[in-house]
């Protein structure tokens, strides 16, 4: 068990965004979280990654209770996410973006950086090499020196993923990675997700693109109006009548 959510509830003022949501994510699996708009999927991600505090419930990463950890503590523990509205570091190059991903895998502080101590020079070389490796992994190596702000949309998505991979995570949460991609890019994304899993990284996806989800996921969790509606394999979900009516309406 890589990630376990237990009774996650989130209430904003008068609105219950999430109501007692529980599920587990197995090590090395690709899990999809789907649901109609407003189901609470991004809120769930925000809670797991420490950007929101849940009103009730717990989050466990492997055996560790990370329920109240701060966001910045999670990368070192192996948990990372990408954003629905791509949050690139627009003023830096593609390579530099990925190098930030290696922040928790490096340690030079202000002093050693300012004085360029030998340890820092060595570490900088290591960061650069590793980052290039990740760009090669996602197929973006030729764009390394391009300004991240100038990337076409699909490449920006890919950069977010490359940057997240540089944190050397155990589990990566992707928030609608296929949004805005054309069918070719989506097919490439599916391949990339599989290769990420093959690198022993657990993947959790929030997605609307059903073809991608059904194709790539081992297990799917369905949310609706803040509650967990169903959980199972793609086949089981496709045949679940409650899921069908949630998406298509009852009439």
């Amino acid at each position, binding site marked *: 068990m890589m990630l376990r959510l237990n009774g996650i509830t989130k209430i*904003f*003022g008068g609105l219950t*965004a999430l109501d007692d949501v529980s599920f587990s994510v197995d090590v090395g699996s690709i899990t999809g979280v789907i649901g109609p708009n407003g189901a609470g999927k991004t*809120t769930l991600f*925000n809670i797991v990654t420490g950007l*929101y505090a849940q009103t009730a419930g717990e989050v466990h990463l492997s055996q560790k209770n990370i329920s109240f950890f701060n966001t910045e503590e999670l990368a070192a523990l192996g948990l990372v996410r990408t954003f629905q509205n791509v949050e690139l570091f627009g003023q830096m190059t593609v390579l530099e973006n990925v190098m930030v991903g290696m922040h928790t895998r490096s340690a030079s502080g202000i002093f050693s950086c300012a004085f360029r101590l030998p340890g820092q020079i060595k570490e900088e070389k290591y960061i650069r090499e590793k980052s290039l490796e990740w760009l090669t992994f996602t197929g973006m190596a030729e764009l390394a020196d391009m300004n991240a702000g100038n990337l076409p949309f699909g490449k920006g998505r890919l950069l977010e993923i490359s940057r997240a991979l540089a944190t050397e995570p155990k589990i990566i949460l992707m928030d609608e990675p296929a949004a805005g991609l054309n069918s070719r890019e989506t097919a490439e994304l599916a391949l990339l997700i599989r290769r990420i899993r093959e690198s022993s990284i657990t993947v959790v996806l929030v997605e609307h693109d059903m073809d991608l989800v059904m194709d790539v996921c081992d297990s799917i969790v369905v949310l609706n109006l803040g509650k967990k509606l169903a959980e199972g394999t793609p086949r089981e979900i496709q045949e679940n009548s409650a899921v069908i009516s949630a998406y298509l309406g009852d009439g």
Partner: protein
Amino acid sequence: MDSFRQLFQYILSGLSNGAIYALIGFGFAIIYNATGIINFAQGEFVMLGGMLTIFFLAVLKLPLMAAIILAIIISTIVGVAFERLAIRPLKNANPLSLIIITIGASIFIRGAAMLIWGKDTHALPAFSGDNPLYIAGATILPQHLWIIGLSVLIIIASRIFFNHSVVGKAMRACSYNPRAAGLVGINVKSMVMLSFAISSAVGSMAGIIIAPLTMTSYDVGVMLGLKGFCAVIIGGMSSGMGTVLGGLVLGLLESLGAGFISASYKDAIAFIILLLILFIRPEGLFTKKETERF
């Protein structure tokens, strides 16, 4: 008895200063609520009110009423021009750029004032003379009454405007949800411009009514602006009673502090309060903690 009289004196000047801070803070709140921007130049409109009035009185020899009205009108025009030239083209710029530009604009206005009117301090004659009144053994200048009276009037007027007039309600709608307001036919751009117009008008009025008591010069805007900002922070960015209370609290604390602790650190008191509130309870003392919407 004497210390009681002193206390009363401090309270009085604290309340009248506080009323001014409340009016200035008002200006911050109106623009913030309509646009989400803090108008760094708010203090400069306060300065313009006083300086323009003095200019019209002394140089153009206009009667007091006319000078005041003209000063308010010109300040309002400057405020609207500021919105048009510096704010509107940059609504989509990144926040840091917006801040630097508003700072630049406020400095520009201050610098222009210095070029036009020099660095001297000037005094505006009191509206109804300098003969003090004696109430409960304390000295009250007629100007104090003007300040408190006019502040009350402006606050009542704004209450009526925001709660009972169509335009006022439209402005409030813009502050809650500009998208929705636009969809129901409210001209958001006009509302933004109107918010700047009101803020600069009210700001200049504040500058005019305090000018007879405190000297005015080209650089009073920085301090007054910052103190008005402090008032509105204490009050929780409200366009209503919160800011009034915030201003009064600030004025009182400042006055009592100056009287009983140290007069020379008077200004520092306001800024220390500002920092404390921002550090400890940035949503202000008079609002309930808003639940974060996603």
